[in-house]
């Protein structure tokens, strides 16, 4: 048995690469691994020599005080920031430097800390746009609305309607997103990310600014996504309760450094982690 499996108290799966969680979910082999990432902005070092891995099917939380470098880490993974040092391994291969849209095409989707919806478009169009990496028709076919163009649009519409049902946002389908309250906007952003049918879903504070009820809904959706679609999820979250409930493993960051990594209850009791949080305001 590997030490990881022991610390999880779960049983190894037959392949010996991963484990089964107490609630019966299968955690598989490593899908993405960041190795010794260092990211600097001029004089500021946002990330200092951080390494960790993300396993298939797990919910991996990243926590840490404000300015710890959590969002920067997601931006590195999604190809938006290019680290000065370090490597990213995706599905067993070292990833060359990539543009964000290329990363998206590899099956990595995300949401943003500050909502980044397309304000001039309806909920439906926002979510349809999320499927852009899955659409194949050429511009000529589209211009003439011929061949694949219409068939594809119909097929994707059907898939999007499933997501709309799943996230219970049928009633706002046609609403311009700018008219929606904050909590629903967050949900639409999740829908847009899900529309890409990602292998790996990065969520940057999906519950920030929500009330208890909205947080509960969002938690349920995240668990359902993980459970029903087997989507691997990386979750940045400040609410410790949520982190404890949802995540399989937690990375703790502080001032750009990794100060903890492990199952939630282990991390919670780590003296270094407690010290980092003492006296630091966090929502």
């Amino acid at each position, binding site marked *: 048995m590997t030490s990881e499996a022991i610390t999880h108290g779960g049983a190894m799966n037959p392949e010996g690469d991963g484990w089964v969680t107490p609630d019966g979910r299968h955690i598989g082999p490593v899908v993405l691994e960041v190795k010794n990432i260092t990211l600097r902005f001029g004089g500021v070092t946002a990330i200092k020599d951080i390494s960790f891995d993300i396993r298939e099917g797990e919910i991996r939380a990243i926590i840490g005080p404000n300015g710890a470098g959590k969002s920067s880490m997601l931006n590195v993974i*999604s190809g*938006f920031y290019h680290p000065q040092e370090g490597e990213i391994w995706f599905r067993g291969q070292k990833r060359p430097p990539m*543009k*964000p*849209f290329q*990363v*998206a*095409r590899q099956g990595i*989707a*995300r949401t*943003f800390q500050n909502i*980044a*919806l*397309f*304000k*001039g*478009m309806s909920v439906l*169009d926002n979510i*349809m*746009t*999320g499927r*852009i*990496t899955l*659409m194949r*028709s050429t*511009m000529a076919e*589209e*211009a*003439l*609305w011929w061949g694949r*163009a*219409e068939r*594809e*649009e*119909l097929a994707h*519409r*059907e898939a999007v*309607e499933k997501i709309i049902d799943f996230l219970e946002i049928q009633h706002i389908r046609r609403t311009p997103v700018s008219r929606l309250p904050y909590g629903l906007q967050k949900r639409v952003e999740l829908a*847009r*990310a899900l529309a*890409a049918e990602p292998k790996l879903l990065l969520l940057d504070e999906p519950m920030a600014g929500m009330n208890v009820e909205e947080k509960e809904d969002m938690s349920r959706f995240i668990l359902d996504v993980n459970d029903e679609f087997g989507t691997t999820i990386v979750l940045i979250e400040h609410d410790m309760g949520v982190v404890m409930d949802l995540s399989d493993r937690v990375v703790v960051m502080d001032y750009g450094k990794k100060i903890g990594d492990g199952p939630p209850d282990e991390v919670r009791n780590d003296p270094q982690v407690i010290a980092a949080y003492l006296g630091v305001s966090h929502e």
Partner: protein
Amino acid sequence: MFYREAGDFKTSYREDMQTFPIRLDRRAYWTIVALAFLVAPFVVNDYWTNAVLLPFLVWATAALGLNLLTGYCGQVSLGTGGFMAVGAFAAYKLMTAFPGMNIVFVVLLAGVVTAGVGLLFGLPSLRIKGFYLAVATLAAQFFFVWLFNKVPWFYNYSASGQITAPERTIFGILVTGPSAAPAAKYLFTLTILFGLAWLARNLTRGKTGRSWMAIRDMDIAAEIIGVDPLKAKLSAFAVSSFFVGVAGALFFTVYLGSAEVTEAFGIDKSFLVLFMIIIGGLGSILGSFLGAALLVLLPVFLKNVMVDILHWETYIAAHLELMIVGGLIIFFLIYEPHGLAQLWRLAKEKLRLWPFPY
């Protein structure tokens, strides 16, 4: 008859995705199309065809083109006049170099040439945005006017520097040149615009249109969900320039007959088209038509009422036009950035719920 959606249930996504999901809108659309093709050319007299219908069709084509770029993709361009000039001169060179070429091909090829040129001038958009991009397109505007003035090859070394469209026919009917019947010119232009509007509608309802709007609304998020900004922006520039080039070719060959670049394609034309889409509605195909209609009709209306009926001086009407257009722009920019098209939508929404407010 009430304007209602109720009882007009959609049983498939295909029906729900129609251009006009509401039956009454669909009927209105086909009625207008039928009137435009089958009735207007036979009842409207030559004066109105030349003074209103033809320029409306040409400017609607240009406005549609600019709206794809600016309204849908968010890339401001002040080079519309210059790109229309490219279309016009491309058409002229094609007509004189290949006298046997069908005028339909001439116009479409002129559009293709302009698309290529637009692609080139779209390259800076990958680096610069907003105000700076607008200035870069302004440079294109001045460059083309200068180029077509300076290089005699473009106007076939004519002494006056003017270009004049030779006579061309479709099915034996003249559509260019001084002896072409206004109704024939009108039908020719209308057919092309109808086709282009259909293309624009198709492009904006699917993947391409959404990638343009995504870039417009939030380019970072667009890129992170998989939109290639290079492809989205350049395709918007190319498609938009194609439309604008066709508009320029039609403006010159069908409407003006002969043109001098500084006068016909100056910076004022760039602003005119920009005003059309601001007033009509950014990011709306209907808006392109409404804006073009308003700005074409306004001077004609003012002239008819003020000068011909009230016997005011011409310059007063001209000044009044400037003031009204200026006022409209300010109004729409501040209160309704989505223009007349949005006012129309809101009115319909109200009507649909009437007489119950909820």
